């Protein structure tokens, strides 16, 4: 039984609101948790096969130029070394972008950035390969490299597809009662998922099997096949567990192709694990940005104009540009509008999607500007936002599929105690700390991506879900089991979930917050199909059918599955995006509130508490959703206060290419965080009536912190991250307000 469903019309109601099993939305523990806490969940670098050998990638030591020769003599002479593998044409220069179906940029003779992998040294042991990697002699003809983003910003080329404008923004700025026109800068960042990228490759005949740390297996498989000149059905990728991705594992990266080529050359399985330095130097990053935001408003606080223009960086021939204005375009009204990105070509590692590409840094600027406007107009920041919610998309004139932003703002404000805030900066002092509070809206676009799943109802009253969807920590295993349990009237324990293998039906993958809703819908649809068969078998209409406790019921008549299902029942369902994508603005929304302390002498910033109220359609599992939001908000702390990839503008190296110096928040940085979800259903999003949540928590979180820093000490820092050296020289006189 195969069915395909296209999301062309809003759905009237969802079965999940009628099945009454009380499984969906419940905060159940993640089902693979016991495996993970016991160290028994197996990641891609943890598979071992007879004869397996180890490869270590060797990266370029110049940022631009050409390889003139590789001398293997010293490396080959070391004990245990089997081969130096390189292939100037086939090796990947860059990792792939998410959802691409073609091979990422290939060819490594030309060097485009420092650390670009150019060869793989393979040895019997990892230690031997690591030693030999250091002994590989590579000669280069260096070329001049473009390394200084700020110095080169005037050479940015506009990205045509991103340019949008309406009305006369310059005029609106001139006529405004109050206006903001300022520039925010955000640094280069790294996803820093805890698991480094890794592939274990082996060939079975002419079929390549790769155990890889990837987020989107079906498109990754196409990328890998294309890179190697294989038919996609000759490539199988397996990723049962992935140690986080946050965008860095959307496309394939260099170690997969290198491992595959080496495995073919040596006729042995090859495992390649990137070092942490290589993850920083050669995978993906979020581009630094320079963002100009303009706001024009009347004295009543209503926006008359809004502009958000962004300069980002990328490698030659790469046109991804952090879409910083993504949510700005629909979050607030204002007749005159201008948006657009331009790209500086740089010899620095690939810029691509990192958690909430666009909003994660774009909302730092937009929501900072809104805070400044609120102050200029002496309007409460929450109120200013509520006054500017457009009834429909301000440019495309489309309705919102659902938008509980005003409710989130109100609820969040009261839960946080916003009314007690002193709007005057540098006016609250406790001991050696200035205390301040700030807020920001949260918004993140919602998407549906084609996704398939197969559900088999066995003769043993158990169901099996199979899809190549991944669980990168988001809780996919658990929510898919919950959806099936709810739909089929089975306990969660009776659902087996098999993910992360391209041998299963192709799914959306984990990215862009679309994974749960897209893959979840495919499971929902397959289960719905199974319900129809069961209904037929007991002579009920689908509407009459009630499934619970492994029984099918119609009125008072009931039959156990064991009688109805004598052969396994299989349904495969595919969901595809349709017209609701074009006919509605779809996004999840929320409101962030933060309280910080700024040390009066050193400028040190401590986040004291955070609150987030979110609405994202149906929440599929309250626990996993909450974790996503808390994790996102802590990402926001890093974005606001600590994370910054430092590129050396002379050598092209990344100065802080390790977790010691690239500062993720640590336990002690994390304050009390409250998260509340408001009830909502989105009928245009998908039949689950759910929206994505994985990136909502980060969107706006850092802005709430920066706004709180301003409220604490009266310093507007528009250059992220807000490190103490940017504050210390300008701190207010500590004696201005006595504790």
């Amino acid at each position, binding site marked *: 039984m195969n069915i395909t469903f296209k999301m062309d019309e809003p759905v009237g109601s969802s079965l999940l609101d009628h099945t009454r099993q009380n499984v969906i939305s419940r905060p159940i*523990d*993640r089902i*693979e*948790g*016991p*495996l*993970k*806490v*016991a*160290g028994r*969940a*197996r*990641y891609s*670098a*943890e598979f*071992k096969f007879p004869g397996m050998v180890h490869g270590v990638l060797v990266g370029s030591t110049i940022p631009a130029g050409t390889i003139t020769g590789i001398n293997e003599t010293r490396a080959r002479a070391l004990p245990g070394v089997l081969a130096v593998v390189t292939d100037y044409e086939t090796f990947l220069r860059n990792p792939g972008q998410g959802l691409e179906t073609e091979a990422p940029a290939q060819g490594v003779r030309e060097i485009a950035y420092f650390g670009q992998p150019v060869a793989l040294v393979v040895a019997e*042991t*990892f*230690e031997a390969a690591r*030693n030999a990697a250091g002994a590989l002699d590579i000669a280069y003809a260096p070329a001049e490299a473009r390394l200084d983003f700020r110095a080169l910003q005037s050479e940015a080329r506009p990205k045509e597809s991103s340019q949008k404008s309406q009305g006369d923004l310059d005029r609106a700025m001139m006529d405004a009662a109050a206006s903001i026109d300022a520039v925010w800068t955000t640094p280069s960042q790294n996803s*820093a*998922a*805890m*698991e*480094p990228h890794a592939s274990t490759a082996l060939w079975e005949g002419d079929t390549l099997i790769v155990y890889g740390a990837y987020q989107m297996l079906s498109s990754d498989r196409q990328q890998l096949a294309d890179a190697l000149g294989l038919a996609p059905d000759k490539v199988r990728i397996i990723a049962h567990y992935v*140690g986080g991705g946050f965008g860095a594992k959307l496309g394939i990266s260099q170690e997969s192709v290198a491992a595959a080529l080496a495995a073919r050359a040596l006729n042995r399985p090859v495992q390649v*694990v990137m070092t*942490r330095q290589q993850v920083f130097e050669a995978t993906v990053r979020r581009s630094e940005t320079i963002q100009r935001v303009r706001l024009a408003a009347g004295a009543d606080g209503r926006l008359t104009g809004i502009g958000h223009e962004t300069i980002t960086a990328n490698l030659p021939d790469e046109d991804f540009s952090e879409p910083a204005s993504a949510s700005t375009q629909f979050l607030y009204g204002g007749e005159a509008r201008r948006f657009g990105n331009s790209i500086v070509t740089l010899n620095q590692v690939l810029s691509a999607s990192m958690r909430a590409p666009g909003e994660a840094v774009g909302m730092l600027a937009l929501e900072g500007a809104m805070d400044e406007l609120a102050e200029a107009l002496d309007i409460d920041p929450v109120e200013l936002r509520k006054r500017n919610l457009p009834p429909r998309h301000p440019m495309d004139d489309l309705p919102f599929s659902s938008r509980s932003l005003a409710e989130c703002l109100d609820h969040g404000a009261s839960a946080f105690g916003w009314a007690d805030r002193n709007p005057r900066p540098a006016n609250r002092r*406790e*001991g050696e*700390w200035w*205390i301040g509070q700030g807020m920001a809206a949260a918004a993140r676009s919602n998407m549906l991506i084609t996704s398939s799943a197969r559900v088999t109802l066995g003769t043993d009253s158990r169901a099996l879900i199979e899809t190549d969807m991944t669980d990168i*920590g*988001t*809780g996919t295993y658990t929510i898919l089991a919950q959806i099936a349990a709810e739909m089929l009237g089975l306990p969660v324990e009776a659902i087996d979930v098999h993910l992360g293998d391209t041998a299963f039906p192709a799914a959306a993958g984990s990215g862009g917050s679309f994974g749960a809703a897209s893959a979840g819908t495919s499971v929902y649809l397959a289960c719905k199909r199974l319900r129809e068969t069961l209904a037929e078998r007991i002579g009920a209409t689908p509407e009459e059918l009630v499934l619970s406790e492994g029984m099918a019921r119609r009125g008072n008549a009931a039959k156990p599955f064991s009688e109805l299902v004598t052969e396994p029942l299989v349904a495969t369902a595919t969901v595809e995006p349709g017209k609701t994508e074009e006919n509605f603005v779809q996004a999840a929304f929320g409101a962030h509130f933060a309280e910080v302390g700024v040390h009066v*002498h*050193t400028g040190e910033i*401590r986040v*004291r508490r955070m609150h987030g109220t979110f609405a994202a359609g149906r929440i599929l599992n309250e*626990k996993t959703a*909450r*974790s996503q939001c*808390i*994790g*996102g*908000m802590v*990402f926001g702390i890093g974005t606001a206060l*600590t994370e910054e990839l430092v590129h050396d503008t002379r050598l092209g190296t990344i100065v802080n290419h390790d977790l*010691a*110096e690239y*500062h993720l*928040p*640590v*336990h*002690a*940085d*994390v304050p*009390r*965080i409250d998260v509340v979800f408001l009830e909502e259903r989105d009928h245009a999003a998908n039949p689950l009536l759910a929206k994505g949540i994985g990136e909502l928590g980060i969107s706006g979180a850092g802005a709430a912190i920066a706004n709180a820093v301003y409220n604490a000490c009266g310093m507007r820092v528009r250059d992220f991250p807000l490190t103490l050296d940017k504050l*210390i020289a300008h701190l207010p006189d500590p004696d201005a307000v006595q504790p």
Partner: protein
Amino acid sequence: MTEIRGTLRFILNDSLVELTDISATRTLLDFLRLDRHLRGTKEGCAEGDCGACTVLVGRVSGEGIAYESVNACIAFVGALDGAHVVTIEHLSSPTGPLHPVQQAMVEHHGSQCGFCTPGIVMSLYALWMRMPEPGRQDVEKALQGNLCRCTGYAPIIRAAEAAAGFGRPEEDPLVLERSGMVAKLRALQDGSRIEIGEGRARLIVPSDVEDLARVYAAEPEATLVAGSTDVGLWVTKFMRDIGPLIFIGNLEQLQGIEDTTTGVTLGAGVSYTRAAQVLARRFPQMAELWHRIGGEQVRNMGTIGGNIANGSPIGDTPPPLIALGAKVTLRKGSERRTLKLEEFFIAYGKQDRAPGEFVESVMIPALPAGEQFAVYKISKRREEDISTLCGAFRIFVNDAGTVGMVRIAFGGMAATPKRARAVEAALVGRPWSAETIEAALPAFSEDFQPISDMRASADYRMLTARNLLRRFHLETTGAGQRLERGAA
């Protein structure tokens, strides 16, 4: 004559490991994951920063065993002779129930992608054994060395606080079997030197300090390895060829702590964790500094001797110890000499240490009555970060209110840890007043020409160093309290 044994012996979970062929630079993590296929322990960075590789190492201590968390990625197998290594696989069997700490992590949703999880479980396990009902600060301290990118930490902290509700340490196998394990480990101690391998690849574990003195004098090109929190990175990150390795981390005679009225003497092999206990008592002003060195795993591994001997300009112990007038004792063969700690540091990468000579101990004189002392660490990230600068101040203000004696030392301001002699000169003999401080501030530029780097600009360092002197003055004259308090 010392007996020589060609086998390294330790207990891994519940089995005896005997190695006759092990590379001196083999890390414990590679040994576990690649040689033993114990893949529960993860590798997130291979340089001590993330804690994904956390395991416990237990050693006989008195009548019992002290289990401490360590980073397996920068620990060498060569350092494990006579130890009990406990990995995540030991906590529960595939078919049995989960360990209380694991159960708490599941129920409080402390694991998402799961990659950091085994390391976090091990850190929490060590905490729970020691302190089943920890406060929030204890939890934060125990987890300083564990990064998680997914959970935002809050669920992990809740799990840590709840663990005791799922089971008590008294029932834990490691606790129940402690006496048996002590006997097993004792039986492994035979007083012999261990030597494995040939030439520059040799691994040597001296039998005692006398043996070390002999071996090192004979092999001055060897590299001493104490806690390996520096040397581990030379192998995993810099791939340096470091010749024969002599493991000194567990020589009993280097573990001594002497606490007398005149001062505290620490053996070079005393770890940060052990040093902290006595130093926090004798010099409470230093307590906070100790808790901000590395994470728990690094504090359990890293030694005072290593922190001095590595000569780093940004090591955290030299500035306070110089300010306190500490003396270091060096030994070569049977010769010993003692010098002021500040004299030990000559230039960047150069210390007053002859080939074959090692740091044996450091003596920190007690703070005379009436003197005041403080040390401040400034770092970009507050927790688990190397100092941007570290400043230590000691002063005696006589009855007339003038500065009788002052000693100021900084790390992160010059190529070595260094005294601020010009500033001291500008203070001594003058009233301990805001005016004197202001007048002395220009002298900072005579003492220091700091560099700009990724951690901070030269200007920031200079400004902050001066502010620290102001702060010290305020603290010693104002309300008499430390100008620092958690905001949360």
